[in-house]
């Protein structure tokens, strides 16, 4: 099956992941005490209290997404869609084809996340002098990894229908709208008290100054979403005309 092996790109993903993990903490320090706390403040905290805090924490939260989307947002287009007629004249196993590409994206996401965590750990070791990691944080890392994968898979599957750049815009717009809704709910303008519990994003930030970590159902929701997106993507490729 098609496997885009690009060593330079993979090295770039690792190095930029480490750099981002380090500098995102360096530029926006939020007063963490240890590595666990720092991880949550960096990758798992959106502060809704006031707008400056919201902007800083949202930036910290979205930057890892932007970086991996920059590298992998057009993976389906690059590996499959531009050469679809040559590929489909050799195989009709579209599901298998997309599954292989999706696994490739997952592998890259895992590599990227590990690089991010390493960068963040380097900062913690140098500045905080601490690198202690709890089971909850490992779970949180796993959920974050799944969430980044979900975003990438969603963008790549939407790019089957529209251009990858437009797919990126659509997905980020959805995320921003969700955050605006939560902010409005937080400020009392919207009476959707349970909104933050129904959005998979919620696990990666804390709400009302309390950590909202409930990884099991969220992990399950994300995996369910991944399966649905994969199924829909392969159905679209199977049914659509290759023009």
């Amino acid at each position, binding site marked *: *099956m*098609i*496997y*885009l092996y*690009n060593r*330079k*790109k993979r090295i770039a993903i690792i190095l930029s992941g480490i750099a981002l993990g380090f500098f995102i903490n360096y530029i926006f320090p939020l007063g963490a005490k240890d590595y666990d706390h720092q991880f949550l403040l960096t990758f798992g905290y959106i502060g809704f209290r006031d707008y400056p805090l919201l902007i800083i924490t949202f930036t910290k939260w979205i930057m890892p997404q932007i970086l991996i989307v920059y590298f992998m947002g057009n993976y389906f287009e*690059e*590996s499959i869609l*531009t*050469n*679809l*007629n*040559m*590929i*489909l*004249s*050799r*195989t*009709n196993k579209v599901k298998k084809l997309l599954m292989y590409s999706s696994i490739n994206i997952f592998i890259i996401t895992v590599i990227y996340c590990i690089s991010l965590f390493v960068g963040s750990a380097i900062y913690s070791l140098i500045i905080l002098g601490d690198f202690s990691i709890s089971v909850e944080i490992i779970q949180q890392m796993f959920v974050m990894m799944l969430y980044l994968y979900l975003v990438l898979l969603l963008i790549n599957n939407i790019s089957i229908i529209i251009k990858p750049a437009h797919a990126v815009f659509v997905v980020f717009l959805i995320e921003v709208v969700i955050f605006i809704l939560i902010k409005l709910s937080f400020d009392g303008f919207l009476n959707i008290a349970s909104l933050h519990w129904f959005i998979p994003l919620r696990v990666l930030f804390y709400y009302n100054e309390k950590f909202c970590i409930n990884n099991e159902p969220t992990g399950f929701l994300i995996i369910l979403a991944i399966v649905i997106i994969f199924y829909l993507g392969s159905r679209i490729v*199977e049914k659509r*005309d*290759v*023009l």
Partner: protein
Amino acid sequence: MFYKEVFKINTIHLNDVSKRIKKEYVLRNINLTFNEGCIYGLHGINGSGKTMLLRAISGLIKPTEGTVSINEKILHKDIDFPESIGVLIETPDFWRNYTAIEVLSSLGRIKKIVSEDDIINALNRVGLEPRDKRTIKKFSLGMKQRLGIAQAIMEKPKILLLDEPTNALDKSGISLIEEIIKEESSRGTIIIIASHNTHDLSNCDSLIEIENGYII
């Protein structure tokens, strides 16, 4: 039927095929039969429906009406795509960071019926150097076209569809392609060449004229 199964005679049959895209017909009531060992030329101006017809035969588009059958198996019903087909539809993009041999190896891994020697042979036949370390992004349009032809022929398909195969090729390239077409035809391959240029179709056994999606 039994005779065809035993001797595997290749035929493509289009039965009243029409294709509508966004309320506009691009193919209308096409009835054609293609037999093995023959070279068919599909001639028409730009936008006449030549490429669409090739896409319909290769299973890349689903006819709105009618059927395409390959060896009596109906496309999109009995089979999704023809079992043995080589396709060059417009100049392909390929994977920009790969070398020519890496591109063909990647494509070859899908069906796993070609060896490295077959790939090297295909590249030599189209006049590309197998050991060339340049990636596709450094290829000229003509080189990409040659590589497109190499990927279409490397698996020795029973059906070969070539859309404007001489696009961007120089004289030597055109001679090479003419030679390849003759060789492939002598293997019993059904070859369909689409072109707006009658000169490209001078070696065809049968010429089909297409206009506004109709065969005329």
